[in-house]
């Protein structure tokens, strides 16, 4: 779905009905979540999801700055999604581009739906998402880690936010697209919910899907998100015993 376009002659599903990395259609890549991995941040989390390595630090609630950004009724949630220069194949120039500005916006909105922002008028909650290595699905992996980091900061939430992607490649609806499936496939759906109620807090899609394919994708996501939600909760409960986790090793 990128400028790389589609190369119809690349086979993404082999003759045994398996994906290039050996997964079945509705199978997730390995996911690992760790909590409180940073010393300075008020809350933090690290997620490895396939080849994605993403670090999230939360600062706040703290007084919103500049003053005119303060809302007298609630806290302002500001997520900033950023990729390290070395995180992608071709070096990324530092600083925000249009893609990262859009991602920061939808991720901020998704997090705000989960945080009880009314408890902190005039405050801001900063969520910094640093992609150290990117491997498809960074925005929902970053969002999934962000809600864990916000919880670890002790900020009251209605629920965690849990995200995953589905999509289509080689004409098949697939869960959790790999980098190749994202680059050469036919559709990509970043998706996130509040798992207790199933409410949708983030949804984007681009590509070519029928209504039936969309429905199938949702079924796959629904099941996977329950699993990821468990990983989030395990990481958080582990953090109470094991105060500063060793990460990335």
């Amino acid at each position, binding site marked *: 779905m990128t400028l790389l376009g589609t190369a119809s002659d690349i086979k993404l599903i082999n003759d045994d009905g398996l994906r290039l990395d050996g997964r079945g259609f509705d199978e997730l890549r390995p996911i690992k979540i760790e909590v409180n991995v940073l010393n300075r941040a008020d809350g933090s989390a690290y997620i490895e999801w396939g080849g994605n390595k993403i670090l999230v630090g939360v600062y706040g609630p703290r007084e919103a700055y500049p003053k005119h950004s303060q809302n007298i009724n609630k806290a302002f949630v500001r997520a900033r999604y950023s990729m390290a220069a070395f995180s992608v194949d071709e070096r990324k120039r530092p600083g925000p581009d249009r893609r990262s500005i859009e991602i920061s*916006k939808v991720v901020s909105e998704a997090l705000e*739906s989960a945080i009880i922002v009314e408890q902190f008028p005039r405050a801001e909650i900063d969520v910094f998402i640093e992609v150290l290595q990117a491997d498809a699905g960074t925005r929902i992996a970053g969002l999934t880690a962000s809600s864990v980091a916000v919880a670890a900061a002790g900020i009251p939430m209605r629920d965690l936010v849990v995200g995953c992607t589905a999509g289509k490649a080689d004409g098949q609806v697939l869960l959790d697209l790999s980098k190749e499936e994202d680059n050469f496939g036919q559709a990509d759906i970043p998706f996130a919910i509040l798992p207790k*109620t199933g*409410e949708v807090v*983030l949804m*984007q899609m*681009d590509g*070519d899907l*029928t209504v039936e394919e969309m429905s199938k994708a949702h079924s796959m996501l629904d099941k996977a998100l329950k699993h990821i939600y468990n990983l989030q909760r395990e990481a958080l409960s582990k953090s109470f015993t094991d105060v500063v986790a060793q990460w990335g090793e």
Partner: protein
Amino acid sequence: MPRDELGILSEIKKNFILRKLSDGVRGDGRKFDEFREISIQTNYVPRAAGSAMVTIGKTRILAGVKIEIGEPFPDTPNQGVLTTNVELLPISFPTFESGPPNEVSIEISRVVDRGIREGKTIELKDLVIEEGKKVWIVFIDIDVLDVDGNIFDACNLGAVAALRTAVIPGEAHGFKDAKLPVNNTPVSVTFAKLGDWIVADPTIEEEQMSSARVTVTTTEDGHIRAMQKGLSGTFTWKEIEDAINTSIRLGKEIREKYLQGV
């Protein structure tokens, strides 16, 4: 899109709108799935390769297409280039300021772009002059002139109409002028959620009261090409499915009524 200028839409107005919704009708008398009047005037800017002035109710945008020769991206030597840029002009709303694109205009640009791109309105392969060296670059620039809600769909219509009427300026470069080859016609439909009600083509007052927004772009084959959920409210999956089906239906109507002749 823009929040109420004072941050507060009068409580009386809000309650009026909500009461009406509970009676099954919108503040301006429309049905929940009804668009306001749409007008599309193409070739408004003859100097552009293609252009269209679009109004949806009192929302007004002007889309212009420029087609120039340039180099392809190194990783796609056999494709032309398409870019979409939306400018929220300061004439269009009291709190809009001059300056570089902000996150609001960038989001609109990117959602419109995805609809056009994934809807295969134009095939980038058709824009190659000399593989790896020379391609046509299609710039879609959209100026928002007057804001009264639902900028997304107005910009989408403007972009599609401007492309459908665009001419590649071949003569200036030793070729012949030629109509830009256009294929599918993606149409976006945007919904706002107010309380538990969901309405299509929201006015600015409805936007200012809404908790969530979703845009669904579909093509004539009934396929979904782009979606974007926005704001900090939520949708149930049922609501999303309804929005998809309604968008397919309304998209068909808009395509037939307003874009057929363009």
